[in-house]
């Protein structure tokens, strides 16, 4: 398999994730999209690691996974609080910080 095929996959997933993070109204779906971005980056890292015969790629991908997990935990906690206060997870309604 060629390297750029993996990179295309990663890029495609990244773009999808960015689209989702920016365009979805549901907060949970935004978090899912952010996971998608992180996973796309993981694919990139592992692909480069495999093709360069460097284990650093996979190591870094493990780091990313750990951080993603922590971040999802915090994110979901925030979404939970939003739901409790507003009875909805529509992220476009959370604009109290507008100036």
């Amino acid at each position, binding site marked *: 398999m060629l390297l750029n095929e993996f990179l295309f996959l990663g890029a495609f997933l990244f773009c999808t994730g960015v689209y989702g993070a*920016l*365009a979805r109204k549901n907060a949970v779906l935004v978090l899912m999209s952010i996971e998608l971005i992180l996973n796309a980056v993981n694919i990139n890292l592992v692909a480069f690691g495999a093709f360069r015969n460097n284990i650093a790629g996979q190591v870094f991908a493990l780091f990313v996974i750990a951080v993603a997990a922590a971040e999802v935990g915090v994110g979901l906690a925030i979404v939970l609080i939003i739901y409790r206060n507003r009875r909805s997870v529509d*992220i476009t309604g*959370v604009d109290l910080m507008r100036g």
Partner: protein
Amino acid sequence: MNWILNNLWIVPAVPFVSFWLVLFVGRRLPGKGSELGVGALGACWVLAVWAVVAWVRRPVAGTGADKLRHFIEHNYTWFSNGQVKITLGFHADGLAVCMLFVVSTISLLVHVYSLEYMRGDIRFTYFYAALSLFTCGMFVLVTAASTVQGLFGWELMGVCSFMLIGHWWEDQANSNAALKAFFTTRTGDVGLLVGISLLFFAAHQTFNWEAINQAALAGRVDHTLLFWGAVALMVAVIGKSAQFPLHTWLPDAMAGPTPVSALIHAATMVVAGVYLVARTYGVFWVAFSIGPHTHAHHGVNLLAVVGGVTIIIAALLAFVQDDIKKVLAYSTISQLGYMVMALASGAWVGGVFHLFTHAFFKACLFLGAGSVSHSGAHHSFDMKKEMGGLRKHMPITFATFVIASAALAGIFPLAGFWSKDEILLSAGRNGYVWFTVVGIIGAMLTAAYMTRCVYLTFLGEYRGHGHPHESNKLITVPLIILAVLSVSAGWLNAFGLHYFADWTRNEVFVAAKVQDYPFSLPLAGSALGLALVAAAVAGYFYVREEFKLRGFTERSALARAGRDFLVNKYYLDDLYTDGVVGSIKGPLAQGAYWFNQNVLDAVVNGVALTTRRVANFVYDDIDQLIIDGAVNGVGAGAGEGGVALRTLQNGRVQFYAAILFAAAALLGLGLVLFV
């Protein structure tokens, strides 16, 4: 012995001190301040006599025609401005000492006289204070060494004259008379200031009288400047010494108390102008070319014309007065004309000598008139209505009045004879022949009007309403003293004696080579004869009642017109009041006011209006529009910018995230492309 001549400042100082003392403590004294006044003047008289004696005993220098006694002068610098020094100085010479004697004698006698005359007067204390101050002013003028100091004395006398004429100011007429006197002499004072300034510059920046005279006589002064300086001083003399045309104030000044008239308007202040000419003689001698015109028999100059005209017109006016003081006032004007004319025709000794003798007999006449009014005519001065036949009731007054009138008319051997003849002789010998004629005519007129005056007052039947009686000793003793002086004062220069001439000769006299002529019997005799004839004619007119000229003015329109012309004082008063003052008050003042309101104010208002318009323009267009616009624009811009930028901060997380990603993408692109 010479102490007084070296310290002449003490003579003005004594009455000055007494002025303040009388003013502040006079009221509380038993004599209401009069004792201070009399005492001070007594002291001044003693000092003056001492000065005369000291002067006479001074060593004579020079020989023959150059004989003189050198003057003594002390100057103290008052302040200096650059190179100009204003000094206070005292100049003692024969003229000054002579004037001191005259002024102090007459002032002392007037002070004594006023004890009785002004008894019970409402402002008795202030009267004595003003008399003291006046005497001080005259002393300052007479002993001054510089023109500025003389000016100070001159002005001081003008103020005191105003105060004293208007002594009874409750009556508006008196107040008006005082104002008239002050303003008329003030008109002359402009001339004095101009003259002093011109002479200051002409004589190379000095105010000292001797220096100015010497510079003029030595020819070191530009003639034009000298001439105009002399003309300016002449204006001052015309004002102060009541020459034509500024003589109109003197008759009106008779509204003041009689002692004032005797002191100020007969013997002292009015002769200040004559003194000025005598003191500044070097200037006048050169400016008017007064010197003897031995080749041309018709010497004439401006000052002589003024004097000569004054003699005649004043003498004519004395004929139509009913008020005895007015007769004496016009007589004074006429005699002042004599003095001025004398000085102007080179008769320096004659003019000063006449000043000396005139003071005594004129003061005697005025005080006599006061005595008549006080005790005989019920405090009135109207000869026709309140007097007549007082010879029987007031013998002493009558005797002294007649003696003084005879002296005035120039009857031998009284004082006026010698002084008047000195004038006539010197004028004639110096080439001023016409003025000798004028002088003789004046003498005839004087004899005639004085005869009329004496007749109306003392002879005939009593026409008044009071109980005439002789006056108090305080009045009659001064009269007697003055009568004695009227007889004897002339003897200083009489019968071949030259005491007066010798004592008053000064450096100017010698340097200018003023001529002094010995007595001439033909001239004196003929003048005397003509005067006696005139007196006889006048007497005849009054005594012999069937004289055919009686009622002449009723029958002849021309004579009546002439009489009216005289009674209206040649319409000069109307000319001055309506013509000069009226035209200034009316059209000139209106014109000036119009100019002020419409031209000057228009300019000022225009400036203000323009400033306002410019200010409005700056405010409206520049400040409000441009500057505020800029400032507001910046603010608005900031605001709009903020509003625009605020849309970026909508609180939506996804929006922020989108911007983040876009920026990161751009950054990455940049990194890839350019690094």
